[in-house]
């Protein structure tokens, strides 16, 4: 079984994001970048499946600028076998990413694609679902448990009020939730091995995918600063304020 995992280079989860002074986006120059945390979980799941003998090969894919190669290399250091870097500068929208994955699937013929459920930079949560639709494949999103068998997968997903278990036919697109696993650290021996692993370089043009954005971003601004609260003397005053000032009841 062959597994494809998607890894995206995003601003590190612990960095305080700053809006650019011209309000065209957020500042990424001289900012610490890391692998999207949900994608780390996807890589870990793939590595575990390969270590368990369920999968034979794990391929890490990233779509982005030259620096995205470092994100792929991190996935290789975690245990992925090889990487594919689709070089793309600028903003690439979820539908274009899904189309690129569709073309890569045609070339690599994987049985399963595992993606993070969303990237923490744009929080779109769209690529997995779009890819499944484009391929006509089964989809198991927000997975908190994945069991792969011969030609099928059992996916437990977190939904409002509990857990839902799906039986899916392979091939399938799966997206990871936070509680699926705890990603490992890249060990020094694996980091050293990762240097020698192959990363193929492609462009969206070579794959025949138009990555021009369809959505125009008008302005990016910081959320408004939170105002100080007020203390009320009684429950009656609170109700009065909610009713007449906040107008929420």
């Amino acid at each position: 079984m062959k597994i494809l995992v998607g890894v995206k280079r995003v601003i590190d989860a612990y960095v305080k994001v700053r809006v650019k002074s011209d309000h065209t986006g957020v500042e990424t120059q001289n900012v610490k970048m890391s692998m999207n945390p949900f994608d780390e979980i996807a890589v870990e799941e793939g590595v575990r499946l390969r270590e368990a003998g369920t999968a034979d090969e794990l391929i890490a894919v990233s779509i982005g600028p030259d620096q995205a190669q470092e994100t792929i290399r991190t996935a290789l250091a975690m245990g992925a076998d090889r990487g594919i870097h689709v070089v793309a500068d600028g903003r690439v929208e979820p539908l274009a990413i899904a189309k690129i994955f569709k073309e890569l699937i045609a070339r690599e013929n994987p049985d399963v694609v595992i993606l993070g459920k969303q990237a923490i930079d744009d929080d779109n949560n769209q690529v997995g679902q779009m890819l499944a639709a484009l391929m006509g494949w089964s989809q198991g999103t927000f997975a908190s448990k994945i069991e792969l068998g011969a030609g099928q997968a059992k996916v437990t997903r977190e939904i409002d009020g509990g857990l839902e278990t799906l039986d899916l036919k392979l091939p399938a697109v799966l997206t990871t939730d936070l509680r699926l696993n705890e990603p490992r650290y890249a060990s020094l021996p694996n980091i050293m091995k990762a240097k020698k692993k192959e990363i193929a370089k492609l462009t969206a043009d070579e794959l025949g995918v138009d990555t021009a954005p369809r959505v125009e971003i008008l302005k990016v601004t910081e959320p408004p600063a939170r105002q100080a609260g007020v203390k009320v003397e009684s429950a009656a005053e609170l109700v009065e304020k909610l009713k007449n000032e906040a107008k929420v009841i």
Partner: protein
Amino acid sequence: MTGTSEMANILAEAAGRLLEDHVTRDVLGAAEDGTWPSDLWQVLEDNGLTQPLAPEDRGGMGASFADAFVIAFAAGRRRAPVPLVETMAAGWLLGRAGIDVPPGPLALIDGGAVLTFKDGALSGVAEGVPWAAQAGHLVAEIDGTVALIPADAVTITSDRNMAGEPRDTVTFTEAKPSATGTLDLTATLPVARTLGALMRAAQMAGAMEGAVTLAVQHAGDREQFGRPIAKFQAIQQMLARAAARAAQARSAAETAFLALDRAGADLTDAEWDVAAAKVVAGEAAEIVYDAAHQTHGAIGFTYEHELHFTTRRLWAWRGEFGAETYWAGEIGRRVLGRGADNLWPDLTARQKG
């Protein structure tokens, strides 16, 4: 892996995260109270971070000093309360002497200790040995001979440095090493001291970066006279100076590690860089801990605040494996020995390759 910043970034990220997750406030406090952080050591060993420098056929990873710098810097930044850098340095010494590296933490005897090696046995006293009581083996280098000594062959009296880290007195009474070997190196100084100073320089650079980060964060959070204290120029100037000195120390330490990679079997030239790194780290530490404590005010002096875990280490490490006076003296001796005509070329054309 040497020379690729991409791989160094990945190693820095992995080592930094691992230490961040495992060196918690509780672990630091418990370590000061005498509890050996076995979980931390195990996860370091499991991830191959304890023996980067020993060759693979001797039980190490065969990585470069450039890689070791990344690990030592991260260990200092996160104040890892384990003999990680000592084990790394001892592993390299053992490898160079053709000795298999045993698993577990190793205690590195400072080359400044007065030990004698006669009839296959060691005698003498070594003071301030890091984590001797926790190590399974001790590693000493005497005039080019490296000895691996089981901890149960010596007498260990426990003590601590001002950071609360174990710094024990080890008495060798005709102690029999389990293995000995000869270093295939040329050096003018005790190699164990040079390696120890190299590692301390990297740790100090990491700790300084940590202290500056804490101070900058506090200056942004703490309000006085209606605005964050970071808005006051006096604070800005103090922190900028500290950040510059911390960066200088990092640069000097990294340069020394790279010099060891270039050195091959002749450490004579790299000793200059190690000397400079330890002097720069010591001088910078004074600026950095002054600035960090001044910025924090009274809260920085409380045990509950984490700043002291970093600044007490800076004080302690500054004096270990030779303080600035020792290493500045070495630089002075070399400069005098080389003569006035070589001073300028030695200052300006040292970096090679």
